[in-house]
């Protein structure tokens, strides 16, 4: 099966920032992304868990983007602008995708 080089970017960010992140990505020309729920985690700002959370304030989401390698930098710049002052992490890995015309 024919596959094509691409990048997989995973951004874990606070739920109240999700709308801003996806808007920034869209403005940077990133049209494909998937949002996954997150149950809990820990980091420099301590542990948290979704259990019994009444408010959106504490929750996080994971945003996954598959993107052509040459567009990566624009994506990262846009993402960085949003996450800069916020907690959360951004990681990038190499991958191959089917149906390259979709990216």
């Amino acid at each position, binding site marked *: 099966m024919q596959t094509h080089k691409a990048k997989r970017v995973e951004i874990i960010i606070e739920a109240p920032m999700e709308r801003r992140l996806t808007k920034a990505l869209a403005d940077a020309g990133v049209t494909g992304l998937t949002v996954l729920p997150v149950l809990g985690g820990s980091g420099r700002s301590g542990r948290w868990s979704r259990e*019994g959370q009444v408010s959106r304030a504490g929750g996080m989401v994971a945003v996954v983007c598959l993107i052509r390698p040459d567009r990566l930098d624009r994506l990262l710049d846009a993402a960085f602008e949003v996450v800069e002052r916020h907690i959360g992490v951004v990681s990038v890995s190499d991958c191959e995708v089917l149906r390259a015309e979709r990216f």
Partner: protein
Amino acid sequence: MGEILSLAANNLISPIILSFALGVFAAFARSDLTIPEAVAKGLSIYLLFAIGFKGGAGVAAHGVDAKLVGSLVAGLVLSAVLPFVAFAMLRAMTKLGTLDAAAVAGHYGSISIVTFVAATSLLNGRGISSEGYMVAVAAVMEAPAILSALWLVVRSGRGADMDAGLMREILLNGSIVLLVGSFAIGWITGEEGLAQISSFIVAPFQGVLCLFLLDMGLVAGRGLRESRGVLGAGAVVFGLTMPLVGCLFGLAAALLLGLSLGGTVLMMTLAASASYIAVPAAMRVALPEANPSIYLTLSLGVTFPFNLTLGIPIYAAIAAAILGG
């Protein structure tokens, strides 16, 4: 004083308060008891819908009071002013920096709808009626405090991520829309509407509130446990005195407006309560560097339980002493 204590003790052994206590206990004992997030949200949607609808139906039944507009304005002013009071107290009593102090202050200008509901329950239990539009006052008090908090930050020369999007998000926050919307529905459909759905929003209300407070207890308890040591003694003292200060502002407003005994207690409770839903979410966006452990723990772990157990009976006693009741 003796009377206050006895009323408070009476309040303490209600199913509602004990459910909250059970949640706190389970959290401290590290039990794995949890209410799924979706269920907790479902319960809060139910409570907002029911309280809004009943408020609106109340207004429909008793007619629009000349005091309604005055009360709304008073709510706006209280919400905008209380953060300044809280900020001054925090700077005097604690070592919190500008950012954290402003974030905390914003919470105390805004309100906790569950505290409001608990006060309504207590009034119902004692057969004291209140103005239906107090629900609308609660709704208008949610947001202005956030602006005051951000202004406190900007004034000090630090940046706050305030944009038009955030303003819209704050005002069109889900809980505000649901509360105001169901208030409007209750008002429009009136007693007839209430009759149609009262076996859903009136009869089981207290029971649903128990489960919701169980969840609040779990969240507050886990928050307190995780953030042990985050709050200094000064902050805890603030969390216990600020509601008493706030309630006096509420009392003054109620006396000025000439509210009923029930309305006065509710206005005091609103002023005394602190937000733990709308404001934290806004703060995460606008003041990401402020520490959420501080404001969430103070609001949900200190002030909320205080109001639920001792605060409300105290406000009721003060109001009764002044207005006679």
